[in-house]
């Protein structure tokens, strides 16, 4: 009886020792391997330390980090590098630096105490090798203008981004600009396209469909090629008629029917030939009226562009978006004047 009791006692002792051993070793070695060492902060960490919150990420940068890599990792878009630079008010990254990556817009509509952001939309028409015309910009001048944008911190944005800005949803880089080209002249394909490609600038082409395939115009095949290379193809009516006014001796009914055709036909044709949903329109001669706008909305257009020569704040009318025409004889001084990106306010 005593023997049995002693054996039980010894077994219990062994069991307690085993338990203690298991518990101790578990506590000592069982922590997750990924937990960083708590003792000393490395001066130049090899990996990024970060912490994610609902509306921002805070990162201690590693050596290989760049604005683009951080934007790619945390914002899923390397092109949003400017958001990180602007929020932290820095131009360069240092290793071991604390950086905030905003996950929500922090300056909606580009609003500031002293004023608000405006976005210039540049409107080109045609191009020439060396002889400028009223609406024809030479290859050298166009190259110089694009180079200026690149070297002076301008961000060429898409119309989609511009519309988000107008919806007061997104935030744009402080120096944003949109490039548009009208009509569909062959010179665009020959001269402007390679330059835009070289600088990686997105742009939108507004075509009037009766012109396409004509003498000095691009073919549908070339338009397709542009589209495949990132060009946004949109509408500029069928015949390029001035939609603001009735023609001489045109009845009101005929006028409405004509505008209907100008808006509906190119939309269908572009869809058929290029498989592109045309949602924006550039008004021929930049002219419009309330009726044209009502009909545009009826046909599912989202926005339309005039040629009023101003930049656009976030509260601009999406169916009267201002554009600044670039003329063949514009020098760099004139070009720079058309790049207004901020409107100051002095409150009354």
């Amino acid at each position: 009886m005593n023997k049995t009791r002693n054996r039980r006692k010894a077994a219990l002792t062994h069991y307690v020792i085993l338990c203690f051993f298991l518990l101790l070793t578990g506590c000592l070695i069982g922590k997750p391997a990924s937990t960083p060492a708590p003792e000393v902060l490395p001066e130049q960490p090899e990996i990024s330390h970060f912490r994610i919150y609902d509306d921002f990420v805070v990162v201690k940068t590693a050596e290989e980090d760049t604005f683009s890599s951080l934007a790619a990792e945390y914002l899923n878009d390397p092109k949003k590098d400017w958001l990180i630079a602007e929020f932290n008010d820095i131009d360069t990254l240092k290793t071991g630096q604390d950086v905030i990556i905003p996950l929500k817009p922090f300056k909606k509509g580009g609003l500031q105490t002293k004023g608000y952001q405006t976005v210039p939309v540049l409107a080109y028409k045609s191009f020439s090798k060396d002889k400028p015309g009223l609406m024809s910009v030479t290859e050298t001048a166009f190259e110089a203008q694009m180079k200026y944008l690149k070297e002076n911190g301008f961000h060429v944005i898409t119309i989609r981004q511009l519309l988000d800005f107008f919806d007061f949803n997104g935030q744009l880089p402080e120096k944003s600009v949109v490039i548009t080209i009208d009509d569909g002249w062959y010179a665009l394909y020959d001269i402007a396209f390679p330059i835009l490609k070289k600088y990686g600038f997105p742009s939108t082409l507004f075509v009037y469909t009766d012109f396409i395939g004509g003498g000095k115009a691009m073919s549908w095949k070339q338009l397709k090629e542009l589209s495949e290379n990132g060009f946004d193809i949109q509408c500029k009516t069928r015949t390029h008629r001035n939609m603001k006014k009735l023609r001489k001796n045109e009845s009101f009914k005929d006028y409405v029917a004509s505008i209907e055709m100008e808006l509906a036909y190119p939309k269908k044709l572009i869809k058929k030939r290029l498989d592109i949903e045309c949602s924006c329109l550039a008004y021929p001669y930049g002219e419009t009226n309330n009726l044209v706008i009502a009909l545009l909305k009826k046909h599912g257009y989202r926005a339309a562009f005039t040629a009023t020569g101003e930049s656009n704040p976030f509260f601009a009318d999406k169916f009267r978006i201002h554009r600044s025409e670039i003329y063949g004889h514009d020098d760099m001084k004139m070009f720079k004047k058309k790049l207004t990106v901020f409107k100051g306010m002095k409150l009354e």
Partner: protein
Amino acid sequence: MKKLFSIVLPFLILSFFTGCVHVEEFARKVKGQPEEPKADEAPEEKIIFDSRTYRQKAIEYEKQDELQLSLMHMNIAHKLSPDDDEISEKMAYLRNEIDQKADQHFNEGLKFIKKRKFKSARERFVMALKTDPDHKEALDYLKDRLSGKGYKEYRVRKNDTLRNISNKFYKDPGKDFLIAYLNDLESNAPLVPGTKLKIVTLGTEMTKPPFDMDKELTDAKTLLEKKAYSDVLRVAEKILEHDRLNQEAKDLKSAVYYQMGIKLSRQDKYVEAIKTFKKADPQYDGVEDATQKATDKELKKAERLLKEKQYKQAVAATQNILNHDPSRKAARDLINTTYCQMGKDFIIQKDYVQALDVLSRANPEHGCVKKALYDVKQISKKQAEVHYLRGVKHFLNEELADAIKEWEMTLALDPEYKKAKESIKKARDVLEKLKQVE
């Protein structure tokens, strides 16, 4: 004992493999304590990320009146130092400030709207949105209310039809199709009272009252009866702007020009009458006949002037007729006869140069002109010889200037007189040499 073994042993083995963390976790859950941050939110980061920087930035932004940025940075500081009560208080203060200031800007904006100072109102709404980007009313004013929608809203009333609504807004019942189309309605479908319609605002060019052609024609005819000729022409032109082929309007214009021409004829202003008749449609009843009569009377006037030897007036009157009708034979005869008579008179006056000049303006094949020209040329040749010889005489007497005058007269009478040309050249050379000698 065995039972105790079977419960405790697996738990201990588990803790061996996973570490005592989970044991602690379990214990916390049992006690109801909050969870600690997960692995990627390791507690050590409290040491890595310093909240002070963001707090300091928040204070700087607040000083610059950038309250949103201030709040954002204070929020970052708060997330990094969640236990700092001072930060929490500051955040609450900032939120309150944002609300108050945004509303203040917005209300000021409304006051400016009442004063119709839209630019200032817009700036206030921008400030309200800058202070609080979620201020929906400020956004609404900026995006829609201040810029104008381009259409008016109308709620359908009992007994409304699209035609009377169109008439009400556009002063044209015929634009009902547009209201129907833009509001997705069938043109003939009855309207349901209470339905909200969007009536697009049209420019003045498109809202002009429709042109009532019949009324305009009736008005023009009444004006013609009243002999208000300029008013008739104005209305007729207006009709033709709308319908350039309208024959009634064209006839009205012709009637005006016909009646005005008749009136001028009665005042013996035949040239003006002819000009006026020419503006009418030649096919218009009476125009051709009236033009003929006015022309005949102007011709008779010219014949009378010719008889009275008022040649210049006769030529002018005839020329007026020919300007309107160059093919008129009687007028061409009369003008040639007039020139012939003028030429003959100059011959009688022995002014052969003038005679030649006048006759050269007429048709050389015209009988009278042909004979007069022959006569004057014969006489001129003889006279040219006389003047030439006189010149020679002067030359021999060393009266060089007089000699040149005579020879020039010779050439005026007979431009082909070679000797006269040569003699003038010689005389001038001598005169030049004499000048040099002197």
